[in-house]
């Protein structure tokens, strides 16, 4: 949420912006209250026994004089000019209002940043629900009974699960799939059975008056409250830069515990109706569990592949491309429901499979649309559930049983903690990086319950005698975990997460250099590639490249990482803008500034402690984090944040452009020793490098370099008016006066000399030219040695055609 901070003109600006935000806040709150109040009188109509809709007659009723009437008692109602028929639209209307209200509330929260920082969104949503519930209760209203079993499972749950599945970070997930499934599946089972048994034991204690709850019902209840929803915790994890494994375990846990819970729920509901449970049934239950899980997986895969295959042919119907994604996922869900296998597994697997292939086949806009719609739908679902939770808390009558509820809370925590400990002990030997106690604590503490738990308990069949007790207990545990754990996790995590070095003692030097080293190490790791237990991954990737991609992706080229990356980050549009904008700007690099940069040293500044502290702040806030943390993280309430990556890549792109253009300006008279060969190679280069014409690149035009002789080479300023475009632009120019390295053997102009002779040069200018997208290299283009960044598109109006060698 940190935008570019434009320094406002002093205190006045700040004062006004504060004022503005205050007024906006007030406006939002008035609006929300207004809407709430609006729902009430509308709701009151439902209580009134159905009358014929009020009519306002304009003409006085006319009785035909003397004529026989077919139904002597019927009134003749006249044509209503103005009528209100609320009951017809009641349900959609109220739902819409609720969603709108919650969305306004979200806007309201984000106005005041501190709130969202400390309080997770689920808390806020529940609070709003509580408020609305309180109002409704005061007016003696009933919430519309829309939340039924079918509505929940068929309409509300799928978007939420689709969202989790679609935005699941696949690489860490598959690398840690064993751990994730272990904690999620086995953990949930452990929790359910443990809590169920203990509660059953507690029920035997006469004093609590709960003896009528038998084992099956206890197990059912226990399985419901084992559904974990640690989404609120993920935000905190991201900010604290917890390690990737922990993050993905928590993320995966939220998803798969839902799946397991639903399966258990269905199983136990069925079992709860049976008077006696025999051992055979237990074995059947276990078998069913596996069938259900694996069946869901299989269905999901099938639908995923079919969907990918379909999108191969959708280039002519681009507007409805997103539709296919949604329809196929939903279909997977429904078909799985048809056969009573795990629909959550089906839809998740479908989303995972589809995502990879579909995002390559489909246009960028459809990609964006899909992502946004998925997020939107899941947001609606979740909002509705939490809202409902809040309202129901106040408006239904509760059955309060201190003993049972307290024991529930106690056992829930106990078993979760125990479970994490035991499970970690068992799985640590299999992991390269074992979980330490800090990790385990965070895992245990992230066991928040959420929307699914509530919905499941609310839709329990009515033949469960103590349903009200269960509802009350569930609401208690949800409120407890969400509010107390949700709010306290951030301070706790920061407390536990002791920084390795005390910041005050670090010098600026250490911070800068250590960050550089970390980046370097990360880079080396990336060069080394992923080792280890990735036998299956390699096998799969081979299979993928040879067979699957050919079938499922249209115009398949060799898998191209950089372009896929650019596309994924939707940078292509940005690049276009960059290219077009820069055409209009000005001229040659200022040679003067080059000299100034190398001028005599400035008088040394003295830095006071305050300066140092500020510098530390700047460094810690603004240095790019290591790559793991910039790309993978995603939360339930927002789209993945890849702005840093975009910045890095756009910057690279800018420097590539600039350096390519600049080469045309360089004259042999340029200062600086060590450039003797530079001008020659530079001039020689453009013609050669412009040979890459019209490679079959999807959706990018001819990639050629702006030919030097065109004379339209212009230095582009930094994209998008960043604060220091001027200063940086200039110094970048200086450094970009270096030549580019031509890697190919034929173009081997003293390249070593050039490389070494570069003063002020950033390899960024040199390497990126060579770092052009290799995807574009069809094997036949082998001889085309010079490098092209395919994203340097020749502007369309540039009349100069590149010369082919």
């Amino acid at each position: 949420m940190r935008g570019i901070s434009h320094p406002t003109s002093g205190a006045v600006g700040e004062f006004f912006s504060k004022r503005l935000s205050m007024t906006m806040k007030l406006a939002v709150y008035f609006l929300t209250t207004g809407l709430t109040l609006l729902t009430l009188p509308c709701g009151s109509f439902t209580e009134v026994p159905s009358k014929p809709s009020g009519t306002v007659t304009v003409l006085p009723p006319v009785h035909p004089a003397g004529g026989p009437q077919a139904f002597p008692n019927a009134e003749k109602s006249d044509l209503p000019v103005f009528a209100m028929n609320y009951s017809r639209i009641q349900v959609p209307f109220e739902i819409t209002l609720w969603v709108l209200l919650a969305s306004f509330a979200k806007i309201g929260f984000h106005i005041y940043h501190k709130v969202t920082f400390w309080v997770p969104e689920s808390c806020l949503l529940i609070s709003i629900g509580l408020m609305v519930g309180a109002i409704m209760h005061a007016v003696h209203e009933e919430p519309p009974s829309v939340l039924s079993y079918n509505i929940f499972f068929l309409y509300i749950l799928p978007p939420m699960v689709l969202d989790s599945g679609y935005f699941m970070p696949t690489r860490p997930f598959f690398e840690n799939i064993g751990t994730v499934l272990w904690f999620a599946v086995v953990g949930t089972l452990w929790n359910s059975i443990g809590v169920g048994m203990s509660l059953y034991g507690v029920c035997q204690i006469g004093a609590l008056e709960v003896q009528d709850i038998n084992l099956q019902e206890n197990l059912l209840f226990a399985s419901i409250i084992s559904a974990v929803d640690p989404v609120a915790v993920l935000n905190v994890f991201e900010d604290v830069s917890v390690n990737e494994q922990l993050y993905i375990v928590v993320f995966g846990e939220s998803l798969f515990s839902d799946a397991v819970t639903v399966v258990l729920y269905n199983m136990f509901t069925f079992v709860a109706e049976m008077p006696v449970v025999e051992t055979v049934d237990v074995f059947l239950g276990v078998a069913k569990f596996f069938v259900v899980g694996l069946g869901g997986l299989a269905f999901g895969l099938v639908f995923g592949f079919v969907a990918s295959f379909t999108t191969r042919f959708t280039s002519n119907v681009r507007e409805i491309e997103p539709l296919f994604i949604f329809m196929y996922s939903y279909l997977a869900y429904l078909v799985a429901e048809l056969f009573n296998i795990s629909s959550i597994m089906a839809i998740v697997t479908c989303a995972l499979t589809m995502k990879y292939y579909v995002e390559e086949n489909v246009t960028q806009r459809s990609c964006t649309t899909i992502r946004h719609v998925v997020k939107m739908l899941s947001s609606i679902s979740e909002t509705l559930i939490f809202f409902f939770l809040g309202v129901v808390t106040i408006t239904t009558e509760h059955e309060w049983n201190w003993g049972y509820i307290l024991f529930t809370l106690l056992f829930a925590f106990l078993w979760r903690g125990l479970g994490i400990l035991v499970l970690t002990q068992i799985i640590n030997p299999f992991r390269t990086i074992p979980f330490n106690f800090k990790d385990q604590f965070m895992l245990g503490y992230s066991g928040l319950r959420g929307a699914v738990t509530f919905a499941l308990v609310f839709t329990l069949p009515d033949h469960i005698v103590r349903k009200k007790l269960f509802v009350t207990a569930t609401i208690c545990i949800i409120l407890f975990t969400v509010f107390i754990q949700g709010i306290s996790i951030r301070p706790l995590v920061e407390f536990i997460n002791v920084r390795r070095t005390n910041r005050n003692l670090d010098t600026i030097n250490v911070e800068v250099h250590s960050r550089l080293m970390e980046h370097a190490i990360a880079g080396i790791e990336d060069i080394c590639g992923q080792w280890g237990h990735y036998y299956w991954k390699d096998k799969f990737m081979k299979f993928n490249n040879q067979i699957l991609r050919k079938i499922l992706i249209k115009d398949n080229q060799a898998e191209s990482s950089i372009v896929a990356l650019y596309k994924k980050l939707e940078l292509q549009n940005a690049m276009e803008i960059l290219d077009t904008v820069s055409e209009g700007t000005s001229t040659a690099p200022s040679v003067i500034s080059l000299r100034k940069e190398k001028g005599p040293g400035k008088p040394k500044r003295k830095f006071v402690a305050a300066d140092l502290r500020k510098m530390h702040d700047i460094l810690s806030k603004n240095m790019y984090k290591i790559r793991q943390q910039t790309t993978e993280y995603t939360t339930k309430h927002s789209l993945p944040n890849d702005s840093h990556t975009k910045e890095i890549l756009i910057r690279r792109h800018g420097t590539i452009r600039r350096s390519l253009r600049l080469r045309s300006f360089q004259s042999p008279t340029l200062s600086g020793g060590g450039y003797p060969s530079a001008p020659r190679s530079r001039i020689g280069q453009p013609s050669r490098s412009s040979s890459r014409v019209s490679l079959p690149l999807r959706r990018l035009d001819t990639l050629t370099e702006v030919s030097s002789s065109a004379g339209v080479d212009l230095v582009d300023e930094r994209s998008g008016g960043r604060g220091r475009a001027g200063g940086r632009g200039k110094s970048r120019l200086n450094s970009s006066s270096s030549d580019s390295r031509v890697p190919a053997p034929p173009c081997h102009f003293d390249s070593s000399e050039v490389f070494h002779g570069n003063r002020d040069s950033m390899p960024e200018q040199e390497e990126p030219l060579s770092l052009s997208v290799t995807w574009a290299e069809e094997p036949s283009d082998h001889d085309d040695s010079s490098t092209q960044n395919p994203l340097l598109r020749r502007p369309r109006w540039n009349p100069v055609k590149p010369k082919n060698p």
Partner: protein
Amino acid sequence: MGSTNSTLSKIPNVEELMRETGFSPAHIVRLYDRFESLDKEKTGHLRPEDFGAINRLAMNPIGDRIIGAFFSSGQDTVDFHSFVRILAHFRPAENNRPRDPSLPEPVNSRISKLKFAFQLYDLDKDGKISRAELLQVLRSMMEMQVTEEQLESIADRTIQEADLDRDDAISFEEFRKVPLGDTLTLTQQRVASK
């Protein structure tokens, strides 16, 4: 493993390589597989654009410099031996064994890692990190919203702290003195565990 031996036999001078770098045969094999997968055209050499195809490296703020470090000796291609030699810098150091001072400096000692890092800064290879070079690195590592003045003051401060002989640049000797101990050891483990 049978496949290890067969792969090893494909690599010329592999024993010398192993001795020089300290990698185990299994590591060498893995590196060779990686080398081959990067070398898409099977030329036996890697060029800068092969490195550039690594997605995650492109997203690294200093990715280009790292790639440059592989090509630092002036060639434009990297063969397997050089590839391994450079990566050997990052093998975790065995600090426990007392070093025999008469032996040459091991490839993966702390010093050589620092040298590598120094190379990332010092592009013109003059043995010093000038203020301008430092500024460039800082710029690439910081987000867009940091102003030029802030960057310059950070660079000034960095030089001030480290520059002992007052030549307004950081030489390798001065760079060595920066207490970077933690970062080096902890991060090495990550490479090793892979």
